[in-house]
């Protein structure tokens, strides 16, 4: 029979061994590789494949998944404290790259990507490469691309989807009947989150957020885009739309209460997944409808991977980036319906099989005519989005958006002057 002292001694040795094991597998250059991923279809897909990398690298991978906003806040808190416990960072190049690079939070990957023939950096789409490059230095690798696409209910528009914005408005208005549980059109209405989707309307009306280094949000083209978007959401959109983003739009479409949605094509599985959607088999996809300046949706590298500059496992982190964004992995992910940033994957006829045919056609159209940004290209993107989103909210609420745009444009000009001073890294 074990004596009490033996039990305690065994427990003590076990605890020490456990702690030593933790230290060996968790910390230091040889420890676990720690990933922070956003709750996004790419993150869910890579999680299923990460065992493949663990076998290759003989290293355990620990994944933390959170919403995009939480990811940003986590980086802000941890990297402000030079925390070494994040190795691989999933990030939004258009939102965070300039700021994070300026802060010295991202490891410089230039030599690694350029000097690796097998990795084939030139195979990554040019716009996506530019997006992760700041002042000639590469700070990340693009992993997901996306464009605005029109999601529609095929059973409600048997003659086919609208091809112009005016046609979209008239059809959505005709189908809009909230009393019968049918919303004509649902789109993002939250000031900050809606800006990225609104950009496609702005470009298709011939406008841009910044024109020749100055505010473009009070130009006639921008005012026309604000007016259209406001009218569309006000007259054919759901009640309370200014509190809506993708998280609120997806379920009401999936419940069959909406005829049209315009949002990112990379999240299409959320709209058609038979586990959550009642209308997945009746959902069609079409290119962004044309405005006066044609169909000009954004076409962006929405997510990338970077290496924390304070990580002691930077080499291993790069190995993960190299594997996760390699031609083979991107092709395999694209077959599973995740649009990547490699030309070779897009040119591979097999890769298209991962998408519904009409979505693949919409993606091809968006890639051909798209604009490689969906928000102001500045350091302080959060403040810029708040500023340019204000006339949009005024238009949705039926307020004097022209006065708001003029007022806001002056503020945006001042902001751009201040922001330019902060660009140096």
């Amino acid at each position, binding site marked *: 029979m074990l004596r009490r002292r033996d039990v305690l001694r065994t427990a003590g040795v076990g605890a020490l061994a456990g702690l030593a094991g933790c230290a060996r597998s968790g910390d230091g250059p040889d420890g676990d590789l720690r990933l922070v991923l956003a709750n996004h279809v790419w993150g869910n897909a890579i999680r299923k494949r990460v065992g493949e990398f663990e076998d290759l690298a003989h290293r355990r991978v620990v994944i933390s998944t959170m919403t995009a906003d939480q990811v940003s806040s986590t980086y802000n808190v941890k990297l402000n404290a030079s925390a070494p416990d994040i190795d691989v960072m999933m990030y939004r190049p258009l939102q965070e790259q300039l700021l994070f690079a300026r*802060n010295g939070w991202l490891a410089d990957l230039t030599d690694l990507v350029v000097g690796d023939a097998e990795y084939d950096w030139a195979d990554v789409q040019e716009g996506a490469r530019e997006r992760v490059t700041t002042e000639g230095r590469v700070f990340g690798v693009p992993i997901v691309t996306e464009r605005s696409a029109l999601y529609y209910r095929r059973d409600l528009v048997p003659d086919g989807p609208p091809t112009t914005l005016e046609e979209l408005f008239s059809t959505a208005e005709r189908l809009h009947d909230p009393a019968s549980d049918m919303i004509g059109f649902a789109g993002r209405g*939250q*000031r*900050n989150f809606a800006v990225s989707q609104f950009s496609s309307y702005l470009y298709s009306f011939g406008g841009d957020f910044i024109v020749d280094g100055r505010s473009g949000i009070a130009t006639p083209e921008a005012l026309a885009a604000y007016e259209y978007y406001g009218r569309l959401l006000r007259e054919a959109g759901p*009640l309370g*739309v*200014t*509190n*809506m983003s993708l998280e609120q739009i997806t379920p009401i479409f999936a419940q069959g209460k909406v005829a049209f949605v315009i949002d990112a094509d990379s999240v299409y599985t959320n709209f058609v997944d038979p586990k959550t959607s009642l209308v997945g088999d009746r959902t069609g996809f079409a290119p962004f409808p044309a405005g006066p300046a044609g169909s000009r949706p954004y076409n962006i590298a929405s997510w990338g991977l970077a290496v924390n500059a304070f990580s002691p496992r930077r080499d291993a982190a790069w190995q993960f980036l190299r594997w996760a964004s390699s031609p083979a992995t991107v092709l395999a992910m694209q077959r599973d319906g995740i649009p990547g940033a490699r030309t070779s994957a897009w040119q591979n006829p097999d890769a298209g099989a991962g998408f519904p045919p009409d979505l693949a056609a919409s993606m091809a159209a968006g890639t051909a005519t798209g604009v490689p940004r969906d928000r102001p290209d500045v350091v302080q993107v959060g403040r810029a989005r708040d500023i340019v989103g204000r006339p949009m909210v005024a238009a949705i609420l039926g307020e004097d958006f022209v006065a708001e745009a003029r007022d806001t444009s002056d503020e945006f000009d001042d902001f751009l002057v201040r922001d330019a001073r*902060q660009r140096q890294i």
Partner: protein
Amino acid sequence: MARTLEQENRRLKWTMIAPAVVFIGLMVVFPLAYTAWLSLTDAFGAVNADTRFLGLTNYTDALGDTRRFWPAVGRTFVFTVAAVVLELVLGMALAMLLRRPFRGMRWMRTILMVPLLATPVAVGVVWMLILDPTVGIANAILGLVGIPPQPFLGSVAQSLPTLILIDVWQWTPMMTLLLLAGLTTLPEEPEEAALVDGASAWQRFRLVTLPMLGTTIVTALVLRSVDALKTFDLIYATKGAGGGSSYEAETLNVYAYGITFDYSEYGLAAAVLVLFTVLIIGIVVVLRLRSEKAGS
């Protein structure tokens, strides 16, 4: 030279409290002092980046901001006063009902605790589902009685009142429990004497019970007011950054969070937080002074 017993005692006393002093210094004094220092600089992007000393510029910028800062101050007060007053009134009513023993009292008290156990973010998400203008159950119920659908959190006008009501739903039970604890300590004789003298129920409550419960009420008010002033998670979970598209539910906490994490303007954010701290301390001092005045 041998130490006297008194010297030895003094030394021991400092040794014993040293861990607490160090802990408070690290966890309270340093963050406060660092925040105060940041508020005097142009810290942006990363807090350890090079900064310039600006003096009181961040304070004048914040105090001169009529678009965001002052409306946020106003909303913070409206939210706090409305929520706490409603919670006090309802909490008092419930405490009076639960004061006397009755069958199922334990069950009732347990059920009352349920909202307190939920985290505010979970509460916010659940209420968002209930109040969703298109698929939420609230509008379905309103529809049954012929009331048109309401936007609730999707409306500029209805957002703050809706949030106040959610806060009341969650925190009234806490007020009830605090007041109930106070009520159980009150002697029964004064009320019985009033009853013998022919006082009505309302008179007994207003002239006997309420004055005796004064200290408990002030304590409950201070606790809930400080908590309500700091409310962040519920508002952020339901209205997002900036407290909504027209900043309609942006309180000081949400405003400070936005400047910190969405704008990375740490200097300005620190100034707002210092002003906010001063505001909270001021309110607590006023409530304490009033309590002492009433007590004396």
